[in-house]
């Protein structure tokens, strides 16, 4: 223990400027953060506007602190002073960890307590989850420690960091090109596995470097792990997995009956610009029916196949993302992307689309009904929300864990100041919002206060675009709020009648 404290004292003397800098940034973060929660308070002047970068700067200052303190007893090279002194690596490593706990975790914990208090959340009741934030944060601190453990100095670490970031972006772009690679629930499982793999290898590299200082072996191990992770992601049979995860079901077991909605496409606006990207989005209208009243359906993916009489065959592969479908809706839209060259070739030809949708059936649990307040109001088991009465969303904040929410509320067009009889009501159409809780429920971060918005949208096709822009949520109306839970996955296939793609493309 003496040696640990001895090294710690030396590091404190050495790195006080970095410690002070990160403490000042953390103080600025604590001062600024509550303004983020309350929409409308804003920032009074330009200098405060600059403070929006305080979060990233704080993270950078911690990364620098880690790099500097680890590099003090560099694990790379053969000329280090400490290597031929009676340092014991089993004490050197704890000394560094203790330093980071004292100068990263302790100040952060104090800041989090202040923020919880500022947000009117209990401190003791959230203590366990705040600790979980710190554990999650350590998985990110580990990245900086690994970087420091395999590099000689700040310059080298910077270059390796930039190189790794570029490689990660390149890999994610590569993976995103693979159809189906971003459709859950396959991806979160793989993502979690990859995360644990990286963490395990990272911890091993740190221990290996401190115990043996085998830098090239460590670097190769990291590269091999990244390569293996990339290879697994590239070689994953996404189509097969999605097919198994989203089985075809009888019509009676399907959460919703879906078909092509034969509607007249609205006339294109004058002055519509060309879509700037190489892929053209096509919007397909869906006719909906048969949904249970307490359910919603989330379209997780779409696959489109075209087989023209002239012999052109095309399959989009699984493309991620789609709308949420609600029981009171009878119309919705899904989008898919097509290469421009192909689109230009096919746009005027009458053709049929064979559509496949991957659906997740969502049920609301622990439902409660609350009255929308004017300004700030509390929602049990969620947190504190803020209604501006002039927009179709509600800004909320929760302690540590952002909850999932499946919410429905009656919207109003125009202003809440008018009497209900004077306002132009949206009628029977309710507004819906579906917000998934993050996985895992506690993530790495700085603030223990999770700010989020419940973005409400009206049922498709029932409100004109002009009216949509005027929708507000007025105080006093009831909101049904439940916790979303996926109760089943399924796949739906149907074929459109002959259509011309140019009539369904999305304008920009």
């Amino acid at each position, binding site marked *: 223990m*003496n*040696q640990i404290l*001895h090294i710690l004292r030396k590091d404190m003397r*050495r790195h006080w400027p970095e410690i002070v800098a990160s403490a000042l940034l953390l103080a600025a973060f604590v001062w600024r953060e509550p303004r983020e929660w309350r929409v409308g308070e804003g920032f009074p002047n330009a200098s405060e506007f600059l403070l929006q970068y305080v979060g990233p700067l704080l993270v950078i200052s911690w990364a620098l602190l880690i790099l500097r303190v680890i590099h003090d007893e560099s694990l790379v090279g*053969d*000329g280090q002073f400490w290597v*031929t*002194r*009676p340092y014991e690596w089993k004490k050197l490593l704890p000394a560094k960890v203790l330093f980071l706990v004292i100068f990263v975790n302790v100040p952060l914990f104090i800041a989090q307590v202040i923020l919880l208090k500022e947000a009117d959340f209990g401190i003791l009741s959230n203590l366990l989850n705040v600790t979980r934030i710190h554990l999650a944060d350590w998985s990110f601190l580990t990245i900086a420690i690994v970087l420091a453990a395999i590099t000689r100095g700040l310059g080298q670490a910077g270059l390796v960091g930039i190189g790794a970031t570029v490689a990660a972006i390149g890999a994610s772009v590569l993976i995103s090109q693979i159809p189906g690679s971003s459709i859950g629930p396959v991806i979160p499982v793989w993502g979690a596995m990859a995360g644990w793999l990286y963490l395990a290898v990272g911890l091993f590299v740190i221990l290996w470097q401190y115990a043996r200082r085998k830098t090239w072996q460590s670097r190769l191990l990291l590269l091999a792990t990244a390569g293996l992770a990339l290879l697994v992601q590239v070689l994953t049979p996404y189509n097969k997995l999605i097919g198994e995860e989203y089985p075809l079901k009888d019509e009676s077991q399907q959460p919703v009956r879906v078909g092509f909605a034969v509607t007249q496409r609205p006339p294109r606006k004058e002055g519509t610009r060309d879509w700037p990207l190489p892929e053209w989005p096509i919007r397909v209208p869906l006719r909906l029916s048969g949904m249970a009243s307490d359910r919603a359906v989330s379209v997780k993916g779409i696959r489109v196949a075209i087989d023209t009489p002239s012999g052109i065959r095309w399959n989009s592969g699984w493309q991620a993302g789609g709308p949420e479908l609600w029981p009171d809706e009878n119309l919705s839209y899904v989008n898919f992307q097509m290469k421009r060259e192909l689109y230009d070739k096919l746009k005027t030809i009458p053709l049929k689309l064979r559509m496949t949708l991957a659906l997740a059936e969502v049920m609301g649990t622990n439902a409660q009904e609350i009255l929308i307040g004017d300004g700030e109001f509390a929602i049990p088991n969620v947190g504190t929300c803020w209604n501006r009465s002039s927009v179709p969303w509600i800004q909320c904040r929760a302690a540590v864990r952002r909850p999932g929410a499946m919410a429905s509320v009656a919207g109003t067009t125009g202003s809440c100041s008018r009497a209900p009889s004077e306002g132009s009501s949206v009628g029977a159409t309710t507004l819906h919002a579906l917000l998934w809780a993050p996985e895992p429920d506690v993530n790495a971060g700085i603030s223990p206060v999770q700010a989020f918005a419940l973005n409400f949208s009206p049922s498709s096709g029932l409100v004109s675009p002009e009216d949509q822009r005027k929708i507000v949520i007025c105080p006093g109306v009831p909101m049904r709020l439940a916790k979303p839970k996926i109760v089943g996955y399924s796949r739906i296939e149907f074929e459109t009648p002959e259509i011309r793609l140019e009539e369904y493309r999305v304008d920009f």
Partner: protein
Amino acid sequence: MTEVIKTARLTKRYGRIEAVRDLNFTVPEGAIYAFVGPNGAGKTTTIKILMNIFQASGGTAEVLGMRSTKVAGKVFQAIGYVSENQQMPEWMMTGALLQYVRGFYPKWDAQLESELVKQLNLPLERKVRQLSRGMKMKLALASSMAYHPRLIVLDEPFGGLDPLVRDELIEALLERATEATIFISSHDLAEIESFASHVGYMSQGRLQFSEEMGSLAARFREVEVTLEAPRSMPAEMPNSWLQIESAGVVVRFVESEFDERRTREHIRRVFGETREVDFRSMTLRKIFLAMARKGAEV
């Protein structure tokens, strides 16, 4: 006598290059062992293997009775290591560095530290980065001697130092030589000749010889033979004769296995009756030059 350092077929390869090859030598306790050889001979690599900074590709090395791969942590409480390539904590004050290092050694001798600081004129209030190269070496030496190490390893400690600083370092070193074994590498023979008790000579990754200075000096002689009349050199010469040259009636060579009676006998057998035979002692430098030119093991 206990062996403080012992190697057996020690080898270090970098790809296809053998930096150190089949190294066998021992350093007895109490010796001042001069590990000499030209730049690139493999001296620093050998020392770094001994200090467990590098791993050997083959063979073994023992330091203070344990495998060099185990030399770490507390073992360094008995070893002082000073290298010209060592990166010191440049941000520290000289005094603060000594104070910091002190915490790692239970046997740190504050009195000795003060003496060394005084003897080596170390400026305690100056940052390490502001020190000259000579001062840094003095500081490294002081911080490696103040805990009475059993073994002091110095890797090219005098390179690039002015003679005054070098003498100060040697003086400080020799004053403590009685309590420690000193293993010192150098490519400059003259600077260690005066105080080394043992010498090992490396060249191209191989140890050419390793022995006591006394026996080395005793077995090498420059020999000048004056013949009665000029004559051609015989084809057969003793293997121990190196650098044989002749000019008229004078023949010169280096005897590497000198024993006066036996050498005279060899001369008589090779040249017959001679007018005069003169034996001269050799400096370490001349011995190494003769060895280097021969390019073979003795």
